[in-house]
């Protein structure tokens, strides 16, 4: 009897189980590596304009 991985015999299921963990690990590794490398730019004029108008949109909705 095939017991597969983690006692799950169907490879499509244990692959999904392991891929969930692998995808999470990818997120963790990416975050650690890319999070350090990415530049932390100062707000641009476009950012400032967007923020100003976002506050106006907020005000209209509250």
């Amino acid at each position: 009897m095939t017991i597969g991985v983690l006692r799950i015999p169907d490879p499509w299921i244990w692959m999904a189980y392991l891929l969930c963990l692998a995808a999470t690990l990818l997120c963790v590794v990416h975050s650690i590596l890319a999070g350090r490398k990415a530049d932390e730019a100062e707000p641009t004029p476009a950012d400032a304009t967007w923020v100003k108008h976002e506050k106006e949109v907020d005000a209209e909705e509250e």
Partner: protein
Amino acid sequence: MKFWEIIAVLVYLLMVVYLGYLGWKRTKSASDYMLAGRKAHPVIMALSYGSTFISTSAIVGFGGVAAMFGMSLLWLTFCNVFVGVFIAFAVLGGKTRRIGHALDAHTFPELLGRRYESKFIQVFAGSVIFLLMPVYTAAVLIGGSEFIATHFGTPYEPALLVFAVLTAGYVMVGGLKGVMYTDALQGGIMFVGMAVLLIGSYGLVGGVMTGHQDLTAMSGQVFAGHAAIGHQGWTAMPAFGWGAPKYNLWWIVVSTIVLGVGIGVLAQPQLVVRFMTVKSDRELNRAVLVGGVFILMMTGVAFTVGALSNVYFFKHEVIRGQLMATTEKANVIAKQERFETRTVPCQLLHIDTTGNGVPDTHVVLKGLGKAEAILPKAEVINLPDGRVEVRPRASSFLRAVVSAGQGQWMFNPDSIIPIYVTSALPRWFSVLFLLTLLAAAMSTLSSQIHTMGTGIGHDVYKQLAGAQTRSITVTRIGMVVGIIFALAIGYYARGGYVIARATAIFFGLCASAFLPAFVGGLYFRGVTRAAAKARMVTGVLVNGLWVVFIKDAEAQALGICKALFGVQSLLFNVPNWPVVDPLIVALPLSAVVLVAVSLFTRKPSDKLLASVFGGRHEIAAPTAP
């Protein structure tokens, strides 16, 4: 409800309101972070996104589907983490933020409208969101209500009303804009609740290996109606193939549940706008860590525990209480569509486990007639104190017997997780789980209701009435109408894993309608306004027609196909097609339309392309509309 349970819920609500007030007082909206040059902490940002992404729908609805169909749903968890977090944050997030700010877009329809310089696109997208979002909102409401009904032993309808008033009241009073700190608190509660659920559940079934092994050994217990459509056990994929009903389940799981929801998340309006409130790519990248772990702990746990609940109910569950009544012959509804109801005759036991004189647990004693062979046979022992001890020996689906009103009973997949939590885990955990669901529902609902309101107010009314018009009244009316519509859906639609289906409909429609135009708009200069219009209309039209005339369950519920053509689905007699999700047809078709029309229509102006694709430091922000 016990006194300490009321106190726990009240303390939680007070904390949410207090944090909401603090957030409102300090930073009126998330945008203030950027204006002040401050950063939203990546953990806060990721928890906020995650708690908006994950609702009672994912935990109760999809958890119930996993209990019914098994661990094949883990493919959805993989999509949730890889597509919904990694692709969304690391690939699309930064572009969305830069282009959104460059175009001064504040909603998802506005982003699409400005990217393609088309008022039509913004109004069309806003209308679609306003009209369809209540379907998803209903799914969130049903999820919480099913738990309240099970936990407190109340009828479903009042539970729905209470849950809607509680969550919508919170949204209206203080949580309209989903202040990040409030969302993060809710995300934190959800994380703790699901972590305890995972550990407790594996512990109950004897650990990881034993639990999986016992679950695999249960393949012979699959309900006959599910085996007929390809269910091969809870640790096996459904049978794959085409052209026979025995392959239906594979297409339901893969096309509707995994792809419909897994891909659809990329074009969720309430999630896309979150990327615009982030200061830099660095924050996005840092948030990927917490986001990935959080989503794994939400859907991964819900689906694993859902599947494992079968082992608990079949092998470990012991119910002790007062036998209040026996229904000698109940035709329990196993499948109910508008024109098709299938029932299973059986004897039911109604047991009071809490000692308050009201039967709160209903289990199958045995099947009657031909159903005797396909239903579990419960073991009943009379205890010396006059109570009974019952071992239901049922799979999760057959254990989830609930009242369908008017003296009828049904097997309800949406009740599986609530019944499991109430039966298997300590009472204190039930309260923590209730808070988890309240948190999940509140954080998602606040974004849903806000998106519905801005959809009709900002994106439709303001565009049509003029830029200087104030849309506040229309926005608020839109929110109230949306909630009432969602309540109505929640009231009438129950059973048949409606939570997951309603969620999949909305996610699939968003993907069909918006995804190619959204991604094309972010990455490809050559996508034209005409192509974006054509593909959005194609996506919505094909999706809509498929739901109305082909997709069996939804076509039956709507009844238009039956009224016009006398059949519940135009492809009723053709195997597999009626269960294929509209996304499978609509998304490729609309993507082809996008490319084809782009080749033959006028290219976007250089000015627009410069503001969208130019270096972000050179972008000159357009003036407000």
